């Protein structure tokens, strides 16, 4: 039984670690703030999830398994919230994403500039 659990959990732990590293590599390889956020997303979704599941399989008490599951659940609620907060703060303080040409859907392309202006006016950047 222990052997079975270990053979299940170690691949998960290693895969989780691999995804965390890939997220880290992405932070270096991708060109700007907004694209890098996507790379960081790998670390705190699949990377974290695989590691936590791997750890849960090694746990000796049920209570520990439940706690790890709760950690995972909280992570899945909180990480998008803070990613969103980060991106929105960056955007409203004037950091513009690097975009590929003609990358909007038709309806938004014309509005994008207006939208950008609105967003920036709404939360004025601090005097600098």
């Amino acid at each position, binding site marked *: 039984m222990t052997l079975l659990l270990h053979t299940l959990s170690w691949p998960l732990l290693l895969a989780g670690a691999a*995804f965390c590293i*890939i*997220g880290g*590599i*992405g932070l270096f*390889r*991708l*060109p*700007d703030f*907004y*694209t890098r*956020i*996507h*790379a960081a*997303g*790998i670390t705190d*979704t*699949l990377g974290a999830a695989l590691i936590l599941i791997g750890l849960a399989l090694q746990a000796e008490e049920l*209570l520990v398994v*439940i*706690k790890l599951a*709760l950690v995972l659940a909280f992570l*899945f*609620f909180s*990480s*998008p*919230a803070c*990613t*969103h907060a980060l*991106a*929105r703060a960056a*955007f409203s303080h004037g950091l513009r*994403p*690097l*975009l*590929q040409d003609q*990358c*909007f*859907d038709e*309806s*938004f392309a014309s*509005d*994008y500039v207006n*939208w950008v202006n609105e*967003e920036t006016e709404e939360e004025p950047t601090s005097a600098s």
Partner: protein
Amino acid sequence: MKHASGLAITLFVAWLLWSGHTAILLVTLGAGSSLLVVWLLHHLGILDPQGQPLHLLLDIARYLPWLLREVVRSNLDVARRILSRDPPISPCVTRIKAMQKTPLGQVIFANSITLTPGTLSLRVRDGYVVVHALTREAGEALQDGEMNRRVLRLEGETP
């Protein structure tokens, strides 16, 4: 009252799980502090169904497997792109109309977008979600609206 007791039970179960204590004195203290928190929230006037959407639990349980599959799929996709030589990305900003009626539904939708790597919600306002996508395809997949519809269905049965 329903929300108050629901919240009190949730808090107490959380307390039990985190502490793992079973001594009578400690459990009583735990129950007491759960009730105190509920009373404080009531006193502050912030005890509302939105803060504790118990009625959504079943619907969320039905939505979760699909979301997890999407998360895994988009993770693999982004990971593959990061590792390929000269990352094949085409960053986009796109705007999506959230079909959900309630603020909570829209939050779940925007959160689901952010949770899947490759798409990120920049702003939720006036029923629209502005999304930054790592690739054009990721943005278009969102425009297709499967996630939108699923979150709508999740929200649908609430009064």
